[in-house]
């Protein structure tokens, strides 16, 4: 080693190439080895969101990942529809609401998660509808659970990519999401009005099923959420109307 000129170009090139190969190979192994686990983690998160919306925020307390997947398989039935409410053939596992969002509204394929009751999965507890839109800094999305009467919101789970912590990011708080529970969709002749976050916070809208107490300091996130819900409820409108008894 002592005779080797460690500052010659050849040595430096050789060193760099070997180091790159070693590190690259190592990373490739790590990434390949963990791929399945990562995919499973992403899937469980989605199932968690759907069940939390469909069965209530506390329905999954104390359940582990595999138990959540088991419950999901038991109670959730997936349908895929187009914006005319017609059932279409599509592989839900490969369907990405994020990718569909970029298509024109009329061409989107929309998944609907029909959540059955915990003790009697054949009876419908709620329809969970994924939605996607824009917040203040980046995308926001939600799983909205509509009651069997296709009017009342039974639960909602929001998630976001980059809203401000403490302000817009509060949409992931259980307390904020709880504000939507019991609110109603308003069926108009040609459209649906979803409940909206109002300006200001701390107001009581208990007897107003179209209004939701807002988030102070997060007006733009709130408006983004409102727009998203309105847009998607209208996309799902034909499907929802077809389920009306």
């Amino acid at each position, binding site marked *: 080693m002592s005779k080797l000129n460690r500052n010659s170009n050849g040595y430096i090139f050789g060193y760099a190439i070997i180091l790159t190969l070693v*590190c690259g190979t190592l*990373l490739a192994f790590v990434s390949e080895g963990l791929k399945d686990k990562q995919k499973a983690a992403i899937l469980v998160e989605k199932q968690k969101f759907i069940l939390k919306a469909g069965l209530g925020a506390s329905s999954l307390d104390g359940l582990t990942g595999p138990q959540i997947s088991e419950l999901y398989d038991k109670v959730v039935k997936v349908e895929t529809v187009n914006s005319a409410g017609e059932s279409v053939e599509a592989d839900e596992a490969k369907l990405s609401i994020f990718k569909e969002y970029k298509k024109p509204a009329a061409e989107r394929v929309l998944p609907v998660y029909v959540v059955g009751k915990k003790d009697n999965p054949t009876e419908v507890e709620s329809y969970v509808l994924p939605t996607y839109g824009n917040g203040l800094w980046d995308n926001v999305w939600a799983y909205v659970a509509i009651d069997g009467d296709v009017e009342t919101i039974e639960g909602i789970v929001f998630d976001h990519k980059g809203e401000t*912590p403490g302000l817009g990011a509060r949409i992931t708080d259980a307390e904020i999401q709880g504000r939507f529970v019991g609110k109603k969709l308003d069926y108009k002749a040609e459209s649906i009005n979803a409940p909206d976050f109002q300006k200001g916070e701390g107001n009581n809208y208990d007897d107003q099923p179209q209004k939701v107490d807002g988030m102070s300091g997060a007006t733009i996130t709130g408006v983004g959420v409102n727009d998203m819900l309105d847009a998607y409820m209208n996309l799902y409108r034909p499907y929802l109307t077809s389920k009306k008894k």
Partner: protein
Amino acid sequence: MSTEVIEKVEVKKDNEALFSKKRKSLVSNPMDSDNPITIQVLGICSALAVTIALEGTLIMAFAVMFVIVMANVVISTLRNTIPNRIRIIVQLVVVATLVATVDQVLRAVAYEQSKALSVFVGLIITNCIVMGRLEAFALGNKPWDSMLDGFGNAIGYGWIIIAIAFVRELFGAGKLLGFQVLSKDWYVANGFFATPAAACIILGLIIWVLRARSGYVED
């Protein structure tokens, strides 16, 4: 990050105890009198960004510890082979490999937390403490000493961010590790503590107290 000074801790006697006084100080100094955050003011960005809740902060502290210790050991082991002209690049590649590994593992086993920490795990690569220790210590010292030095600095970094997270989660959400400790009946969560500005102020106070106690003055 200082690149000029390489701290050579002369631990040359072959039969020196595994935990000699000098070696113990490698671990204990960075916790207090030579703390990377409060004295050297390194690694501030992540201290402000990831301290909103304790759980994520603990994971971040362990991630940083893994990276600093491993990078110190690897670089120290290779120190006599690394060509001086590309030493920074070599350090960067080693650190980046370790960080990417941590990121991948977190995504597999703690997906929610890895989402919450988002880019900040990846940004450990640019954490000045990591590169600072490699340049200033690992390049000139043996693996065992480098490992101790890594531990000391990681703990020095870790306890500060954990302290900040403790205050922020307690007052910002009334919770600790996700459990409600300040009852919602009488405590209204102070949203200010959820913002990075609060972290900056708490950090400032910690630096003030520690420096007042040790009498440290910036040159």
